[in-house]
């Protein structure tokens, strides 16, 4: 009896809820950006690069990467996967940056406010020229408190051009709910936000509703991890799209998007270049194939550099894909063996990261004109190792900011 009760007690202790919430700091009505003018593309191109951290390196490391993504600046740092989500503009002949910083691995966050003064690079940048020196000065704080700690970044060098395209792919539309971003995983808002985290592409999860509408949802069942609707229970596929649209919301309040909505946003409202469609059940394959083909055409008509790629994660989905007439098959990414990658004529082979750098197979894929991605690479040490020793063409990650920092910092 004692043992049974001890076991019950242990189960209860383990099941204790330890929900974490992250504050997203904001200047709110005190923001200076409302008064600032929009910056030209030349300012963005010229200011982008690697900066040495002269002050603030205890928090942000010795160097940072300033990268503009779809018109908005982000900073990626070397410590704790730190990153800054910023807005920028011109105010009184200076370039100002405002936003928040946080650690990807942890809950620390705060406000940041930077300026490039007129005599420290802003004059030349605003004139469309590359200055001899760019100095970014400002302050950062903790949570929503006034930023008072000093920070100084000095431009060190440009980001080295890539020998071949490398994809930084944000998992579940950019990152998971457990990564505590302001937007829910697999939401339209997260797909738009992914670029600011450093992603150049995203992976999204697709399931069919009861009435056969492909929608973005990861888990098999309705649950409190993903959905803000305590009263909806059971399998996702037992609800119609109309019921889900009206009764359910994602955990941060967004609507559950349809695949079409998600692809439209990716195509028309972002600069993302790779959309990995992670199919959850075999019946999704035939349903979404014409949608994906349609978006391939739309992208081609727009001369837009973006690929919509159907993932083949297991044997059932692989077989459902091969059952499609060859002309109806969208481009695919195969997570199975190299032989199955060849048999399905997938353009990408995507082995799990635990298999290692698998250099021989990656080189074979390259020789055949295919690419190789690995998933889901999250640990800082592994990201560094795979960048150094591997020859992958992209990583799927929950920490795009970390991959972005390490990739852009490469020698």
């Amino acid at each position, binding site marked *: *009896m*004692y043992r049974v*009760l001890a076991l*019950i*007690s242990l*189960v*209860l*202790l383990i*099941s*204790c*809820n330890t929900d974490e919430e992250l504050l997203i700091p904001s200047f709110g009505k005190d923001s200076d950006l409302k008064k600032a003018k929009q910056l030209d593309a030349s300012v963005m191109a010229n200011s982008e690069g690697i900066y040495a951290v002269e002050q603030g390196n205890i928090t942000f490391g010795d160097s940072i990467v300033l990268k503009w993504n779809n018109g908005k600046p982000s900073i990626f740092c070397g410590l704790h996967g730190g990153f800054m989500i910023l807005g920028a503009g011109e105010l009184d002949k200076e370039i100002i940056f405002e936003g928040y910083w946080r650690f990807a691995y942890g809950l620390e966050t705060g406000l940041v406010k930077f300026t490039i003064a007129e005599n420290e690079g802003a004059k030349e940048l605003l004139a469309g020229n590359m200055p001899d020196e760019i100095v970014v000065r400002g302050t950062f704080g903790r949570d929503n408190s006034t930023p008072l700690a000093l920070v100084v970044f000095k431009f060190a060098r440009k980001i080295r051009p890539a020998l071949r395209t490398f994809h930084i792919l944000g998992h579940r539309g950019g990152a998971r709910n457990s990564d505590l971003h302001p937007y829910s995983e697999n939401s339209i808002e997260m797909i738009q936000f992914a670029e600011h985290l450093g992603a150049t592409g995203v992976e999204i999860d697709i399931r069919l509703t*009861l*009435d056969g509408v492909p929608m973005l949802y990861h888990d098999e*069942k*309705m*649950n*409190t991890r993903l959905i*803000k*609707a*305590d*009263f*909806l*229970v*059971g*399998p996702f596929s*037992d*609800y*119609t*799209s*109309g*019921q889900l*649209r*009206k*009764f*359910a*919301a994602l955990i941060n*309040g967004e609507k559950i998007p*349809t695949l079409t909505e998600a692809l439209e946003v990716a195509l028309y409202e972002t600069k993302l270049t790779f959309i990995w469609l992670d199919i959850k059940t075999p019946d999704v394959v035939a349903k979404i194939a014409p949608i994906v083909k349609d978006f391939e055409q739309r992208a081609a008509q727009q001369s837009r550099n973006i690929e919509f790629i159907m993932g083949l994660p297991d044997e059932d989905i692989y077989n459902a894909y091969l059952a499609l007439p060859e002309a109806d098959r969208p481009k695919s990414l195969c997570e199975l063996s190299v032989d199955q990658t060849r048999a399905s004529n997938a353009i990408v082979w995507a082995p799990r990261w635990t298999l290692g750098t698998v250099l021989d197979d990656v080189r074979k894929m390259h020789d055949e004109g295919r690419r190789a991605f690995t998933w889901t690479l999250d640990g800082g040490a592994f990201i560094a190792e795979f960048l150094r020793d591997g020859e992958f063409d992209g990583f799927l990650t929950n920490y795009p900011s970390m991959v972005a920092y390490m990739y852009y910092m490469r020698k």
Partner: protein
Amino acid sequence: MRRIIYFLILLTSPAAFCQMDSLIRVQLTVGGGWGFRTSELNIPDNQLDISTRSPCASLRAMWKPEHMLSIGIESGYLPITQVEAKGTPQVDEDDGTANLSAIPILATLAMDQSGFEFAAGIGVYSLRVAGTSSKGKGIKNSALELGYSFSASYTLELSSILGLGFNVKYYVFTDREIAMIVPQITLAWTMLSY
């Protein structure tokens, strides 16, 4: 959560094994009352939580050996909420209401003396959602969720096999963090003694 652990520790204390009676009994208790949800429901802004109270029922079978500690199984019916969609639905949206209810299936430990009883249960709740839908297909789905309960009661013996009592139950659904308190009238029937 700590409360149930403390209670389990209390139940396992030597006092719980004090001999009370030479008879071993199997007792069936039915209860009916009014349930009040004490937790906020996590729902989208466009939903209206229109029911936080509702009639509830419980059914419990306990094996009561010769000492204070008894063990059994509990079930019942708990309507949790009725949710109504607000506003005019858009083209791609459905409309209607959704009702969430639960059937608890809980292993229960209880300790009673002089008609007073304290009990704790742990197990699963069978959650069911059912509702109307403006575009034909009604909502109907179910799932299991872990949870626990506490209760305190007093039973007045009416005869050697029947008792009438008052009981307050507190139900918790661990994942959805839904909590309900249910005061109810109970009828206890000792269906077997040996």
